């Protein structure tokens, strides 16, 4: 579930009107909590890990992913909407070393599929930006029209900035035809749909990331994929089982 705005603010700052609360940023759930500013700054690694995880999934599932929650209520419980997803055209890695920040940019048709990309991961670089393409089946449009994450089928692509969890240079499908005469509303629906899809994947990632499954199953599977140790994708998929 994507929480409403009120819920977000309540979690981040239970007393938004108090001067003290404003100064401190967030108090949240008790003593010892970090300030909101500090949390924002120090949790950027989650965006990079999310991108690694997403990239890993697109490879081992050969671009066929399920968007968790898409079409909920219209499909069997636990089953999400299907989509094709892949990384394309450009990926940028960064790492911090003793000698400073190191950056590597790779571009091409599908640079994330090349050996250089996984070598960058092996050397401790993490992706900070990547171009992602998502193709939704046409049926999705009818199934979930009007829902935040589900509706129009079609091709989306965008550059994902992992450190800021943000979208840029997004291409959205051509405006829906025959669905009304409000181009703004239609454009916004598509933008929200794209954002909603990314949020649903992020939500799925976070649920795993904060669980013991991350270190027990997912982390080792990602390292195995990174190392090109010969593990067949089928085996990695079996290891992930239902937790992906």
């Amino acid at each position, binding site marked *: *579930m*994507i*929480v409403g*705005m*009120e819920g*977000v*603010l309540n979690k*981040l*700052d239970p007393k*938004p009107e108090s001067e003290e609360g404003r100064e401190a940023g*967030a108090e*949240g*759930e008790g003593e010892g*909590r*970090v300030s909101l500013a500090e*949390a*924002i700054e120090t*949790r*950027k*690694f*989650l*965006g990079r*890990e*999310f991108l690694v995880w997403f990239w890993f999934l697109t490879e081992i599932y050969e671009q066929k992913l399920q968007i968790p929650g898409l079409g909920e209520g219209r499909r069997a419980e636990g089953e999400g909407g299907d989509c094709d997803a892949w990384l394309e055209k450009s990926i940028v890695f960064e*790492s911090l*070393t*003793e*000698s400073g920040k190191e950056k590597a940019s790779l571009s091409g048709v599908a640079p994330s599929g090349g050996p250089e990309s996984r070598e960058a991961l*092996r*050397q*401790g670089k*993490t992706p900070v930006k990547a171009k992602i393409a998502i193709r939704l089946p046409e049926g999705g449009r009818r199934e979930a029209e009007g829902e935040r994450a589900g509706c129009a089928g079609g091709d989306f692509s*965008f550059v994902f900035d*992992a*450190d*800021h*969890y*943000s*979208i*840029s*240079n*997004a*291409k959205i499908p051509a405006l829906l035809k025959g669905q009304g005469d*409000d181009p*703004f*509303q239609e*454009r*916004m629906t598509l933008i929200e749909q794209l*954002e909603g899809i990314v*949020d*649903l994947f*992020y*939500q799925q990632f*976070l649920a795993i*990331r*904060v669980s013991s499954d991350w270190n027990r199953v997912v*982390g080792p599977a*990602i*390292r195995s994929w*990174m190392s090109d140790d010969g593990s067949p994708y089928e085996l990695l998929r079996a290891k992930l089982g239902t937790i992906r």
Partner: protein
Amino acid sequence: MGVLKGSVTYSKLYVRGALPADVHARFLERIRARGFKPLVPEDEDDAAVGWVPIERPYDDPQEGLGLGREGESAGSARLGFDASGVFFGSYLNLGMRLDRWKFPAALIKARMAAAERELKLKTGKERISKLEKAELKEMVLKKLRRDGVPVSSFADFSWSLETGELRFFSKSKAHLEYFYELFEKTFQLRLLPSGCYVGAVAVGALPSQLEAATPTPFALRPPPSASEVSS
């Protein structure tokens, strides 16, 4: 120009605070009060920032034909701040225009050199004092402003009044700085940028869990040390 067309590149923000009861009327009044007013060469300010309608960001008040509705101030009427141009269903859509005087440093330097030569000839002085230089610079900049036009830029935003989510269609640091200030002054509400942490909380993660998380060491071998890199 992202709200209606163009590149879909935006900074996502959350609006914090309660909306007034008569939201349309109150916000229109405040938007009009901070509508864009063009720079004039005599102004001391180097920049002018204000709201403009998303569909006509460059309709300057002085360029208009004076056909605004009776009872509205001339500038705001020409800028077209009526409810139908600002409120689109449950969204508030608005543009921010930023005009700045900007001249190439080399041009300023050349004009200054010419002005200094002229002053030396006129006064017969060999050297020019710091104060005189400052006065000359002011005159040079004023002349450039009179002869030129400001550099104008525009970015628009769409704010869902229902969810509090706001998409500002620019990632420029300068745009964002001006936008935060103008938005918070106009609407008397605060903005919170989205990002990995806020985005995580927005999708249901608990702050305590996020704060307990530490980076995953993916590297299969440690990164080369500084000495290894240099050798």
